[in-house]
């Protein structure tokens, strides 16, 4: 069953009225925040590896030139 974005209730006259946001979405927004943390952490590790590879290559090129 798809997750609802909004919640509805019945008013005093039995009409279906909007109550507000569906609080089941809390977990999605919590997960989205944690996802940013994980993705950025992976990016930082990758960036460190690239920078260290680049500096190793520069060092070996300089050694060959020297």
């Amino acid at each position, binding site marked *: 069953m798809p997750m609802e974005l909004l919640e509805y209730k019945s008013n005093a006259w039995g009409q279906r009225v909007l109550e507000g946001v569906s*609080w089941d979405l809390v977990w999605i927004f919590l997960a989205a*925040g944690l996802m940013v943390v994980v993705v950025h952490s992976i990016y930082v590790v990758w960036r460190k590896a690239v920078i260290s590879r680049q500096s190793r290559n520069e060092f070996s090129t300089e050694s060959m030139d020297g």
Partner: protein
Amino acid sequence: MDEANRVMRHRLTGRLFHWTTAICFFVLLATGLLPVFGINFNWLTPHWIAGLVLIVAVLIHIIRTFQGHHLRYMWIGLKEFITSFSHVLAVLSGKYSSPAKPGKYSVAQKVFHFGATVVVLTAAGTGIMLMTGIDTPFWERDPYFVSESVRGWLFALHGFATLISITMIIVHIYFAIRPEKRYFLRSMINGWVSRRDYEDNHNTDLWKEEKD
């Protein structure tokens, strides 16, 4: 650290605004969300009081922004946006090159600030409208001030602002405590960054050192 090696980033009023906002957000989220998870207490009074304090703080911040010409630091220029976007695309395609040094704030920080502005103004605007339905020392409740369907949409928008703020707070705290970004957090406590952090991480032409 001696004065010569300090560069002012956040003055006392800016820091007070930030931490007031942080406390208000904590109280607003706790009082707004704990009842959703079944922890029931008299949440409404601390919720609207924290909301009003946040609104006053935001109004003072807006006035300060326009008085002190701080807006130029937060404005996202087309050139810097394209530069940052190209960097993100390069990273996504697996190529890394050092990004250009930003001025006082990076594009990511500016985008975050813009998002926070939209979220806070939405929550504040809808919150004020919803407060017409409750008694406070300032006014008596008027349950017919807005119609039932409008009230539902106000609750929905207020709720979405709450949900987005959960994600934003996680992201904000994560970047505040990352080792290479921690000097931002220190500056939000002390007011200054070290000259080394200033020169290593920022374009000193775009972020001119403020003199007292």
